């Protein structure tokens, strides 16, 4: 060995010794001057905060059918500061994630980052296929995504929840998802975990906060009735080329909303379409002037004076009346009509004569007692409260407008509650989208004798000769009232644009269901409530009454069809 070898060995030992001395002295210096430094550096490379997922509550219909369910989903991520997947496996990973290799590579550039999201909300199956590939450095975090089995059928009741920005917690945006967000919402927990060099969790160090699961919610709606109402309403809106429609079914005993559907609708599984038609819950947000459906309240105001009965006579000839220069016409000259006839024919002249014979605020007070101008408080968000004011009552024109359903407005749900009050013998109950237990205690606002009488009068509306015989349901006695209201556009009534309405109670002998159908802007020539809305009511009511097993209260018309029970079964 010559002197060169000795020189190399000496230099190597000197350099190693010098470096070793510095490392040791630096370690000692750090452990005295900043004892936490090394621990911090170590922790930065191995300790991570992780989320503990919690699930948003399930929304169910009144019989337990799911309307909104959270299903697990997974975020695929990498922690470049700990471990990047080996380069040779990038093409395989890119293909599993359905992305370009170059895109994948660009995400690994910044090696100081601790969280790089590769794919958001993949399904369980996708997650399993990525996991099976065992690619080092690829991690998963669990979160939940909302699924709505009834889709557009229950969209306006259930609403939708969505993620806010980068958060993994869903927040209700529409429907009960929004109004009961606090009840349904889950909050994720947090924990500190220790990871090894491969990026795998090896130990849970500390629980920072516990997860809080969302609570389930049982709604008042019956999904079966919801399907029936949606199908019939959609068919009518498409058939009449209408702009929109709504149908509501209320349970008379409890005040529960058994069905509430709108057209157009949207599929909440695809998220909430921003600014698109169909998101707004028009049954509760849109104002309508109820037209002739309000005449029943004028009739009640008349009966409350004690001077009017169903048989009181009105002379409607010659088929029109002029009040303060304004002429209001009936479709034809009905001659002499009883109060029952006035409602059956929906005579403007008859109802105006009745209103003008009452105290100035009599009809107004009746409408207010029926709930006009008072929020329903159903539990759905953005309810319209309705608008009615006594200010114009000095004017006879305002008085007569009130009498046949103009100069004030309300939502379709408010109209349904007003008819519910009639069906409950004058008792105005709370109306709820959440299932209530037992019968609702309400406020007595009308005399039961008057509401009973007015409902019996309304039966003639659905009989032959009434304005809505299309609303009849075989085997059941139906009380209902049509309405055809003109639409106020830019402060003026548009003679070509109408809202067709029907509000009905079934069965009359023992009221169980109140159904309201409103169709905006039918444009196929027919626009009256009796021809547009009443048939929808009939089909919804017929299906619903039979489905709920509510016995008929009218002799059913006999048909040629009959069922013969075979002898071997007739004895059982």
């Amino acid at each position, binding site marked *: 060995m010559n002197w060169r070898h000795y020189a190399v060995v000496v230099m190597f030992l000197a350099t190693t010794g010098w470096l070793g001395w510095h490392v040791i002295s630096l370690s000692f210096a750090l452990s005295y001057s900043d004892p936490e430094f090394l621990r911090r550096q170590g922790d930065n490379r191995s300790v991570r905060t992780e989320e503990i997922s919690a699930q948003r509550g399930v929304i169910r219909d009144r019989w337990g*059918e799911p309307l909104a369910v959270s299903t*697990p989903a997974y975020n695929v991520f990498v922690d470049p500061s700990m471990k990047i997947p080996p380069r040779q496996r990038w093409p395989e990973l890119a293909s599993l994630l359905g992305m370009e290799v170059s895109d994948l590579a660009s995400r690994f550039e910044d090696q100081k980052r601790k969280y790089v999201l590769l794919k958001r909300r993949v399904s369980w199956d996708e997650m399993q296929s990525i996991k099976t590939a065992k690619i080092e450095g690829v991690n998963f975090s669990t979160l939940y995504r909302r699924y709505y089995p*009834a889709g557009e059928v229950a969209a306006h009741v259930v609403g939708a929840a969505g993620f806010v920005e980068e958060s993994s917690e869903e927040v209700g945006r529409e429907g009960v998802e929004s109004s009961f967000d606090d009840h349904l919402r889950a909050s994720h927990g947090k924990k500190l975990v220790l990871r090894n060099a491969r990026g795998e969790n090896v130990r849970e160090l500390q629980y920072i906060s516990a997860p809080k699961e969302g609570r389930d919610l049982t709604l008042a709606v019956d999904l079966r009735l919801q399907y029936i109402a949606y199908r019939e309403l959609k068919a009518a809106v498409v058939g009449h080329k209408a702009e929109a429609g709504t149908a509501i079914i209320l349970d008379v005993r409890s005040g529960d909303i058994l069905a509430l559907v709108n057209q157009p609708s949207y599929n909440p599984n695809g998220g909430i379409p921003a600014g698109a038609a169909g998101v707004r819950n028009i049954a509760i947000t849109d104002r309508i002037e109820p037209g002739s459906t309000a005449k029943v309240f004028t009739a009640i105001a008349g009966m409350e004076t004690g001077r009017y009965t169903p048989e009181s006579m009105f002379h409607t000839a010659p088929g029109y009346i002029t009040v303060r220069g304004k002429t209001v016409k009936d479709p034809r000259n009905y001659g002499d009509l009883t109060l029952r006839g006035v409602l059956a024919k929906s005579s403007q002249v008859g109802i105006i004569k009745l209103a003008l014979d009452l105290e100035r605020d009599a009809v107004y007070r009746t409408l207010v007692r029926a709930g006009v101008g008072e929020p329903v408080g159903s539990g759905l968000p953005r309810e319209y409260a309705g608008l009615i004011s006594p200010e114009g009552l000095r004017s006879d024109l305002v008085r007569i407008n009130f009498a046949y359903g103009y100069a004030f407005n309300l939502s379709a749900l408010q109209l349904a509650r007003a008819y519910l009050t009639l069906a409950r013998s004058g008792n105005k109950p709370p109306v709820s989208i959440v299932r209530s237990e037992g019968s609702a205690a309400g406020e007595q606002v009308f005399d039961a004798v008057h509401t009973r009488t007015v409902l019996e009068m309304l039966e003639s509306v659905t009989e032959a000769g009434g304005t809505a015989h299309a609303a009849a349901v075989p085997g059941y006695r139906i009380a209902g009232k049509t309405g055809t209201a003109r639409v106020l556009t830019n402060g003026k009534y548009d003679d070509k644009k109408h809202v067709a309405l029907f509000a009905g109670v079934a069965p009359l002998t023992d009221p169980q269901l109140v159904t309201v159908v409103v169709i905006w802007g039918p444009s196929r020539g027919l626009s009256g409530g009796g021809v547009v809305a009443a048939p929808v009511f009939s089909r919804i009511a017929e299906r619903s009454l039979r489905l709920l097993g509510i016995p008929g209260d009218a002799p059913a018309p006999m048909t040629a*069809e009959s069922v013969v029970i075979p002898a071997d079964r007739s004895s059982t």
Partner: protein
Amino acid sequence: MSDLARIGIWMLLAAGVMASAILVVDATHEVRSLHSELQAAITAHDEQMKERSRLLLERSARAALPEVEQVATEQLGMKFPHAALRLEP
């Protein structure tokens, strides 16, 4: 203190250090095993939640009124009684 006693104490301390070192290793091993069990339980829980959601949705799809009506009319030959029927014994 005699040398013997001193040696005894030292040996006792050494044995204590050895025992605690072994226990630390054992405890660490147990923590890791339990953590691994926890991870497996979380995975099983996730899988069952996924199964539960899937079954809920499947039941919901099968029990949906349009589905029931389709089976009733197409497979069972049932029809909706649009007019009242007379049952004749």
